[in-house]
């Protein structure tokens, strides 16, 4: 394959050309209630050529028929010529790499019969259904894939990778008369079959919580000290801050650039944030990004001050900064754009435990897990999976419909205490941007306290 790609590359008349080809074997098993909804095996293959002539924009050609490779190299060049760009696109230098990176498959999923995958998921689904007859519906999904990946560019980079991934998710729906509540379990790993064994407890736990939520009151809306659990804190930093640190948002947008000036204070000195595409064993981890740039750990906020951002080769050149290995595409169907990998709030050295965060909170909310989150730049809204009230320094009753909303800048600045209990949340799903979803990413954080945040809920009613 490499020979074929380098031969096709040699025919290109563009100043810069890159070719990515992927072949993906995947299986998916879905249970809904006690019923197996689907068990399928799929094969997906295709390629993407990106080319640039001097003075031209990007020409991008993606295709599923590998017989069209040579024609698509030509087409990408033509497209680049058709869109003149001034000033021209420049790419920051990245030394050429040649690598054969076969990631640890940890039990190659391709060797496991689909019937066995069905049995595994049936057990996890059963763990949810067995909790109570209040569990009226479940959705359990197992998905795995192995992607063989080839990348070449006209600067001499040649990569061949084997990338595994396995994800599991479970939704438990509890119902009593008109009241419906749900619990959500999600696991996502850049590993294989061995890594998803013995996971029943997590599925059972979310179903139990869905049942408990039937009796839980809605949180009373208002302003509280809010403690985010590591899962919600991770989702928060990814959604509310991470996307602003992607340089394609700022590099040709002067007012945005000003808003995100390096050196600006974003939080108290306790706040440290980064993105680490090279962290071992995580779903957002890969040796190289989709431009052939090695991944690395990029500090974004250091002691409350903005110090870095995420780059592609193009945005790095435009801003005179260093490429960070964050140009990623979800598949051969798309060109790479600036994306996160594994984004984190660092645990505070000496930050203590969860108990230390709530000790002096008279009345507050402990917001846990995430049903979803959306950011419209400086405004965000997150729906926690559930919450618990904090009363006089102790965790008290379960509450539901905990929706956190606010302004990013104010909220980051109100993070006043960060615990030391950092953990990565290895979840499924993924990140969406510019029509590219789901991109495998990971988020990590310790417990985080916001001194004051708006919790929606009954207040608005």
């Amino acid at each position: 394959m490499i020979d074929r790609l380098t031969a096709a590359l040699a025919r290109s008349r563009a100043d810069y050309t890159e070719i990515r080809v992927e072949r993906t074997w995947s299986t998916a098993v879905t249970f809904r209630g006690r019923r197996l909804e689907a068990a399928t095996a799929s094969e997906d293959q295709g390629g993407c050529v990106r080319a640039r002539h001097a003075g031209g924009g990007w020409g991008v050609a993606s295709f599923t028929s590998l017989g069209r490779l040579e024609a698509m190299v030509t087409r990408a060049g033509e497209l680049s010529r058709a869109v003149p760009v001034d000033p021209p696109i420049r790419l920051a230098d990245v030394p050429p790499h040649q690598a054969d990176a076969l990631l640890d498959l940890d039990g190659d999923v391709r060797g496991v019969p689909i019937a066995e995958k069905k049995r595994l998921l049936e057990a996890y689904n059963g763990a949810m259904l067995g909790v109570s007859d209040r569990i009226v519906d479940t959705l359990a999904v197992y998905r795995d894939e192995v992607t063989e990946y080839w990348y070449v560019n006209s600067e001499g980079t040649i990569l061949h990778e084997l990338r595994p991934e396995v994800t599991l998710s479970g939704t438990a729906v509890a119902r009593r008369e008109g009241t419906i509540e749900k619990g959500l379990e999600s696991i996502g790993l850049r590993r294989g079959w061995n890594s998803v064994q013995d996971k029943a407890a997590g599925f059972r736990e979310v179903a139990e919580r869905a049942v408990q939520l039937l009796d839980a009151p809605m949180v009373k809306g208002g302003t509280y000290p809010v403690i985010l659990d590591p899962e919600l804190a991770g989702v928060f930093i990814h959604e509310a801050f991470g996307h602003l640190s992607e340089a394609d948002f700022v590099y040709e947008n002067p007012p945005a650039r000003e808003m995100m000036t390096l050196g600006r204070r974003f939080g108290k000195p306790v706040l440290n944030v980064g993105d680490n595409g090279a962290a071992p064993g995580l779903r957002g981890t890969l040796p190289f990004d989709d431009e052939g740039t090695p991944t690395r750990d990029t500090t974004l906020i250091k002691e409350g001050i903005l110090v870095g951002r995420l780059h592609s080769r193009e945005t790095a050149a435009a801003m005179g900064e260093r490429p960070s290995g964050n140009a990623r595409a979800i598949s051969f169907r798309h060109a790479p754009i600036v994306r996160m990998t594994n984004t984190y709030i660092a645990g505070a050295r000496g930050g203590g435990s969860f108990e230390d965060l709530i000790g002096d909170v008279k009345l507050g909310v402990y917001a846990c897990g995430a049903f979803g989150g959306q950011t419209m730049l400086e405004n965000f809204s997150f729906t926690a999976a559930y919450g618990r009230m904090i009363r006089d320094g102790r965790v008290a009753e379960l509450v539901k419909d905990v929706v956190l909303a606010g302004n990013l800048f104010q909220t980051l600045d109100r993070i006043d205490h960060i615990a030391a209990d950092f953990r990565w949340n290895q979840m499924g799903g993924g990140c969406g941007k510019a029509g590219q979803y789901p991109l495998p990413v990971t988020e990590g954080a310790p417990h985080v306290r916001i001194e004051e945040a708006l919790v929606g809920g009954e207040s608005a009613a």
Partner: protein
Amino acid sequence: MIAQLVELARRRADGGADALWRRVERTTVAFEWGRLKSAGTTEEAGANLRVRHRGRVGVAGTTAVEGNDVGAHAAPLLDRALASAELGEELDLAFPVPAPIPPLTAFFDRAAKASLDELVGIGRSLLARLERQGCRVNVAIERETTATRVANSAGAGGEYRGTGFGVSADVWRIAGDDVLVVSDALEGADLPSDEALTALVASINARLDHALLVVAPPEGSLPVVFTPAGLSALMLPVTQALSGKAVLQGISPLGAKVGEQVFDPRFSLTDDPLRVGRTASRPLDDECVPSRALCLVERGVVQRFIYDLETAARAKAESTGNGQRGIFGKPVPAYTSIVLGDVGAQHAAPLPLGGGLLAGITDGLLVDELIGVGQGNVTGGAFSHPVALAYRIERGEITGRVKDAAVAGNAYELWKRVGGFGNDARWTGSRWAPSVLFEGVSVARR
């Protein structure tokens, strides 16, 4: 060829088979932050095969097809579908027999033949008309041609070609830490008319002009007008509840309400796969069922739910022709074009914001976009969202943009008694709807 694939499958699967082959060619042009940045092309083809064997259903998909020739890849694809069926559920799935297929024009030459230069030209003209001091504009143009073939072992099938054309623009204004984004998009099967492009520019400019001044949000139980785009939070619970899948799972609040007056008597909802000029329109669905317009709610009374073949088989109902399938995975019930009320003529003149509903409002809100729609427990109808783009209405006039406000309510309660429907119905994606006024929506400041 798809017929050969089905024939091959029929010989090995005792309960029959159906298949879909689809080829998509897409051309895109993107202007980033005010300048032309990239052009792209996509050629994608694939096949999806479903079999029923020994009473069990299985499915498999592949993009390993060269052109329209499934031939060489048919055997491994069939093997995988049969393996899937071995584990699959027992289901009394009957593939539909041939039936008359309605005529429909889904392919528009002007869209299919538009050159790259024409696409770039549309973008440049939009950019020129949207540029303004202190703002940055992104524009994306996309043109698609599709060819689809479906067939089953009962002899039904069909093929058609379609086109799609999308134009989207967003204008960004960042002032300090205040980020304002106003966007709009056109989507249709044909090349957009000059009038449609003018209306898109006018729609963005009007909403931008009114947004420049920020005012304090109101608070309390207030009249709130949702624009056609802003209506998503109120439509989503309803469309989810009208899916046969939700009914079958027992989680649809409308599951037992067929024949009952659940909504305002002026509320009617139709799924229309035969609407000329819409990208979702097709003469038959992805499971060989002929298309027809389907009235889901008529004058407030629930009529029926949407079904694909499998959901219908399990629910002991008939497919409504809403089967949609991708290259991978099983068909699912899905809407085509959703029409609230009647489809009137396309408006020639740009529409005023609020659809004529603002006049009687002393103090209220006009909501154009909310944050977090679709999160949480949608089906139950309760919603609570911060606003992304909303305006204050005072004494019948828009007085400015509000930030830091949230709206909440229950979609089912609100749809029972609607304050008024606007005269500004339009397509937003695949939904046709006017602005709608609801009384007593809770508005909170933060």
